[in-house]
């Protein structure tokens, strides 16, 4: 035996020790010497195991290495001894008869009468085993007469799930010469102290697992587990066990007896009716048990010992017989019960009283026979009704006072007379009326009333006896009619049935009247019908409908929904029933997004109002974007001053107003500002209001759709997965890329957190974290796809860039990056470089002759967005930048405010990325600045002039920024610089171009502009002479820069442009010239990039 088992035996022993000490102290009084010896041994063990140190010393000289091996050896010896004795003293040692106690192994705990030695003798004689030491694996029964309280309380650890039995079990089994069920002999203390069901479960479970691992007699426990699987397996074992007719089954019976004994009480409480005495049918009981197990129904623990047919003596057995069958199955078949109740021979005594019920009871069988084929769908009907209670229509048809009307159907003269049906009409009048027709009911006559009393109420009451043949006939006719009209008929009684008319065509009400008419025609009796969404309601409807009528109860939900709308109706319906399906924790999706201003709204003219509206749209659009939704329905609300309203008491308040609103729905959800503006203008126009009367305007967007959802396509993952395989070399930049993602970034400033730093993005996906020294970490993003001004670049990052990236960057900055880096190396050189850059720019400027007048204004324009700096730094700028004088006035326009004046200046993408607290902070601060949206300051720049670079700047950064400013790429900015430039030009063609820019939708692409131009007369374009060369030059420059810009990535756009230009060139001298200048340049660049020539087909 392995060490482990010994130890477990030991530990088991130890748990016994305390008790056996007390027990052995009892047993000391036992006169038996042998017993004394045993108890001494027990004591010894107890002592040994309790005090290890002493045991070690006492056994130190023994051949046993430790206590465990000693015990193993001792047990072995004891077993051998026992077996030797058993072989000699075996009672009638012939193997022909199975010994009584075969497979039983007892452990005697404490003092018993008879003594443990006597018990041992019995076990020897009758083939049992006697264990001196408790072992869970070898012992099957614990024998004891008395248990100390501690063991009772902790029975499980004491008995290890084994039965604890009184010694009389052994004695009586010997007397009976067969193994009796131990259940009745269970220790009284335990029987009183019945374990709870839960404790029982755990106990059994462990015993199963133990039993499986040992060779000890298997205890197949009909599991009381709720898991059907377990039940199934235990059932299986049970069968296998049953098939072996040997002593294991006795064991089983013992176990299950216990089980039933314990459970029967509980189940009796549940089902008192079920426990009524029934003749003991062992043979019957077995299959019923098996059935129950197979079905693995909910309450399988009602396991009894019926499979032990030989257990004649067991009194418990009889008690437990009744516990067959699960309660649920009993409940589920009431008809059987009623039938069986009626089948009771007692019914003869009340024959007339019961005969009607008997008729009803037996009618069903007849009905089944008659409509067998039809009633197949019957079961599924009921389940269907349960399953889909949504749009069902159930009809309940009930004959009106069936028993009377059938009897009088051939007595037309009695139709309106009070009639009752009663089994007898004798003079005493003590018979009970079983049914009365409606005229009789009017007199207060009711079923169950004595005829005597009824006659007192209505002297001319006519009383008829039953006519069962007629009832049968009418009932059959009734059902024939019903089955004709619906294949789902549930018979309730002979005169009452449910029909599922969900599937039938037409109005169920019409159907009901048709059925009723037919019933009347065939049977001569009237019927009432109720129609509703479920059986209960249908039945209630019938009650209302009676007599001879029909009633339809429309679903309340529908009528509620008709009155209150779909959602609210549903909600009311649910709430009135205590149903609320909302889940906790889900954020309520906002139904609408909007903005409303009703304070300080005073318009002078329509233009004012339009301006206001477009700003409102911007705001709403940004709110939509902020929420990540797009909407389809747009509602414009206007507060219009009432005619008689006086100036509101609240300053600039809205006062007494009429609320007007118009809304419109577009097919595709949008959050686009321009769409919003267009819609809003339309809506506003539809009011036809005097703008001076307007006191409040609100724009609300509803029918929201999540932007995310619309973006999520199937290919999302696949596209992303391979596009996002970011290489390691850009890793350090990636962390900032989320800021730079958008092609048109807007300035955003996150206030309050120094660590946020200054973020700067550009179109190439580069973003460099500015190691700014500003206290308010202001993130500035460039409005358009412009690389950040050199001044914004952080030296630390630049230096740590990989060389190839640096060179790429350098290219973007036109080689100035190197200068910049060098510049930063020595501060002393700063001025020189700046000056050099300036001289360089001036040369460039000189080259553009004829544009001299334009340049300053252009520069000025360029400066405004860039040079919005905090005023306090102007002083620093001036010394650093020699040529900055012209820009100083521009700086005058700056704001010192670090918060964007409205949400409209906040990049939502950035906003969404910000930490929650920051976001809240920003949003809290914004409303305070909200008013600035409507301030003239902002309205000055209706086009999107970036309010960028609001952050404070150091002097050295400022010096660098000049490089960028004078590097005036015509296509930079939104709108591109050339637009402003052309606008102010005195050259017609340039003016047209600038105009077309706005007209074409301000996309920043040339082809839409050219397309717009093609719509105007081309001949006009030649109609100028002034500044031809100048215009030619600048246009060529424009095109060249455009080609340069687009050649890498958008050859299509260039192609389209040049095809258009080519078309122009066919009509316009000016364009011919221009085309001829630019075309070679184009082809050269295409050849450089694509190794071919653009194929300008001559077809058009």
């Amino acid at each position: 035996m392995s060490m482990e088992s010994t130890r477990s035996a030991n530990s088991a022993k130890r748990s016994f020790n305390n008790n056996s000490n007390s027990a052995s102290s009892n047993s000391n009084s036992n006169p038996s010497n042998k017993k004394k010896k045993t108890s001494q041994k027990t004591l010894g063990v107890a002592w040994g195991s309790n005090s290890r140190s002493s045991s070690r010393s006492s056994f130190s000289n023994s051949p046993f290495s430790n206590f465990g091996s000693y015990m193993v050896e001792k047990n072995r010896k004891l077993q051998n001894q026992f077996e030797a004795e058993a072989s000699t003293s075996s009672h009638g040692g012939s193997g022909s008869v199975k010994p009584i106690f075969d497979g039983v192994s007892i452990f005697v705990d404490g003092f018993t009468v008879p003594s443990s030695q006597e018990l041992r003798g019995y076990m020897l004689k009758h083939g049992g085993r006697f264990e001196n030491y408790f072992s869970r694996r070898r012992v099957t029964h614990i024998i004891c007469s008395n248990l100390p309280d501690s063991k009772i309380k902790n029975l499980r650890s004491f008995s290890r799930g084994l039965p604890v039995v009184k010694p009389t079990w052994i004695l009586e089994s010997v007397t009976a010469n067969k193994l009796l069920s131990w259940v009745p002999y269970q220790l009284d203390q335990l029987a009183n102290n019945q374990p709870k069901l839960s404790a029982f479960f755990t106990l059994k479970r462990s015993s199963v697992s133990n039993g499986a691992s040992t060779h000890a007699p298997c205890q197949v426990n009909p599991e009381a587990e709720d898991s059907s699987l377990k039940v199934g397996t235990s059932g299986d074992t049970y069968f296998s066990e049953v098939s072996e007719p040997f002593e294991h089954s006795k064991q089983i019976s013992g176990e299950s007896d216990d089980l039933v004994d314990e459970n029967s009480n509980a189940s009796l409480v549940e089902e008192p009716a079920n426990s009524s005495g029934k003749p003991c049918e062992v043979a019957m009981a077995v299959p019923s048990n098996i059935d129950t197990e197979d079905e693995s129904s909910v309450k399988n623990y009602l396991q009894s010992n019926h499979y032990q047919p030989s257990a004649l003596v067991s009194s418990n057995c009889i008690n437990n017989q009744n516990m067959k069958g699960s309660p649920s199955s009993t409940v589920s078949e009431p008809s059987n019960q009623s039938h069986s109740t009626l089948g009771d021979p007692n019914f003869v005594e009340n024959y007339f009283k019961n005969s009607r019920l008997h008729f009803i009871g037996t009618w069903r069988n007849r009905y089944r026979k008659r409509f067998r084929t039809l009633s197949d769908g019957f079961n599924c009907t009921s389940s269907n009704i349960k399953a889909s209670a949504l749009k069902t229509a159930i009809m309940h048809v009930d004959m009106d006072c069936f028993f009377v009307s059938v009897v009088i159907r051939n007595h037309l003269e009695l139709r309106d007379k009070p009639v009752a049906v009663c089994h007898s009409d004798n003079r005493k009048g003590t018979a009970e009326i079983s049914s009365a027709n409606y005229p009789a009911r009017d007199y207060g006559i009711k079923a169950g009333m004595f005829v005597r009393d009824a006659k007192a109420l209505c002297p001319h009451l006519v009383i008829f006896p039953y006519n069962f043949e007629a009832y049968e006939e009418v009932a059959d006719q009734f059902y024939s009619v019903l089955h004709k009209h619906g294949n789902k008929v549930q018979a309730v009684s002979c005169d009452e049935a449910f029909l599922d008319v969900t599937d039938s065509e037409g109005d169920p009400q019409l159907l009901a009247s048709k059925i009723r008419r037919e019933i009347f025609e065939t049977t001569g009796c009237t019927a009432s019908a109720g129609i509703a969404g479920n059986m209960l309601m249908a039945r209630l409807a019938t009650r209302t409908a009676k007599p001879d009528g029909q009633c339809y109860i429309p679903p309340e939900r529908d009528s509620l929904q008709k009155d209150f709308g779909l959602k609210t109706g549903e909600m009311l319906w649910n709430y009135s029933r205590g149903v609320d399906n909302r889940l906790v924790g889900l954020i309520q999706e906002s139904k609408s997004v909007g903005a409303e201003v009703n304070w300080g709204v005073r318009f002078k003219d329509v233009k004012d109002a339009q301006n206001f509206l477009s700003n409102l749209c911007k705001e709403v659009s940004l709110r939509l974007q902020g929420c990540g939704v797009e909407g389809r329905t747009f509602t414009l609300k206007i507060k219009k001053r009432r005619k008689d309203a006086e100036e509101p008491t609240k300053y600039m308040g809205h006062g007494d107003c009429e609320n007007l609103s118009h809304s419109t729905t577009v097919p595709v959800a949008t959050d686009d500002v321009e769409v919003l503006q267009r819609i809003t203008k339309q809506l506003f126009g539809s009011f036809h209001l005097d703008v001076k009367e307007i006191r409040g305007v609100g724009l609300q967007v509803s029918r929201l759709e999540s932007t995310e959802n619309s973006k999520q396509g199937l290919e999302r993952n696949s596209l992303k997965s391979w596009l996002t395989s970011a290489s390691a070399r850009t890793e350090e930049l990636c962390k900032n890329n989320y800021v730079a993602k958008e092609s048109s970034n807007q300035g955003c400033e996150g206030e309050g957190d120094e660590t946020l730093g200054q973020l700067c993005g550009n179109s190439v996906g580069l973003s460099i974290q500015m190691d700014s020294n500003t206290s308010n970490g202001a993130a500035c993003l460039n409005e358009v796809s412009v690389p950040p001004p050199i001044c914004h670049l952080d030296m630390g990052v630049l230096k740590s860039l990989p060389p190839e990236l640096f060179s790429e960057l350098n290219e973007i900055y036109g080689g100035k990056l190197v200068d910049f880096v060098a510049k930063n190396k020595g501060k002393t050189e700063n001025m020189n470089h700046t000056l050099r850059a300036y001289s360089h720019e001036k040369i460039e400027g000189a080259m553009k002759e004829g544009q001299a007048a334009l340049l300053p204004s252009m520069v000025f324009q360029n400066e405004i967005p860039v040079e919005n700096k905090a005023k306090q730094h102007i002083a620093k700028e001036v010394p650093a930048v020699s040529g900055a004088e012209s820009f100083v006035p521009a700086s005058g326009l700056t704001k010192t405010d670090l918060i964007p004046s409205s949400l409209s200046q906040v990049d939502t993408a950035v906003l969404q990325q910000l930490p929650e607290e920051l976001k809240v902070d920003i949003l809290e601060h914004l409303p305070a600045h909200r008013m600035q949206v409507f301030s003239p300051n902002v309205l000055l720049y209706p086009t999107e002039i970036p309010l960028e670079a609001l952050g404070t700047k150091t002097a050295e950064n400022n010096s660098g920024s000049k490089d960028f400013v004078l590097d005036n790429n015509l296509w930079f900015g939104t709108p591109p610089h050339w637009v402003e430039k052309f606008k102010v030009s005195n050259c017609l063609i340039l003016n047209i171009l600038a105009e077309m820019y706005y007209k074409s939708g301000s996309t920043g692409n040339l082809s839409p502009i050219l397309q717009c131009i093609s719509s105007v007369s081309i001949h006009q374009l030649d109609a100028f002479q002034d500044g031809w060369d100048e215009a030619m030059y600048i246009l060529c420059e424009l095109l060249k820069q455009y080609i340069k810009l687009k050649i890498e990535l958008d050859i299509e756009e260039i192609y389209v442009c040049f095809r258009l230009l080519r078309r122009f060139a066919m009509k316009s001298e000016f364009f011919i010239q221009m085309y001829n200048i630019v075309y070679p340049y184009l082809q050269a660049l295409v050849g450089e990039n694509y190794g071919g020539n653009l194929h300008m087909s001559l077809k058009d």
Partner: protein
Amino acid sequence: MNLVVQRACHPQLRDYIHSAVFGLLPFIQKGMVERAAVIFFNTDGIPVERFVFKLAVNQSYGSKVEDANLEFSLRSFLIKLSVSESLTKVLPRDYRWEITAYFRSLPEASANKDVEQWIPTDTRQWEQPPLLTPIKSMSSEPLCVQLYIEHPSLSEPKP
């Protein structure tokens, strides 16, 4: 993407296209593929028409890809592709075609098993720079694709 895309109905042809395109994928991801071309050539191996996809993948893009933009661009790209038939000429029956990828640098054959799927092409080159007809350019970050057709230059010596 809510778009009809045509594909070959012959299973082997379909497999070829599929495996070729998927074989390109790892190289596109690494940014090694500059252009991928579908080249139609005659029996002498002289190309008559080349559909060139010029690729530019911005690898610095992390997980922040604007699906909507990309999807929109791709959709318009594919739509344009399907209507570009008018730019092409009807080719004779016995012409063949192949998918050719132009790498920025030749991948090391040992490095990757995918490389082995690709063999050097023996299609001949034109002697003169070809004529380009752009079909569609999409420049949605982080993926830029341009499709143009190359036809032999008019001065190209006829075979």
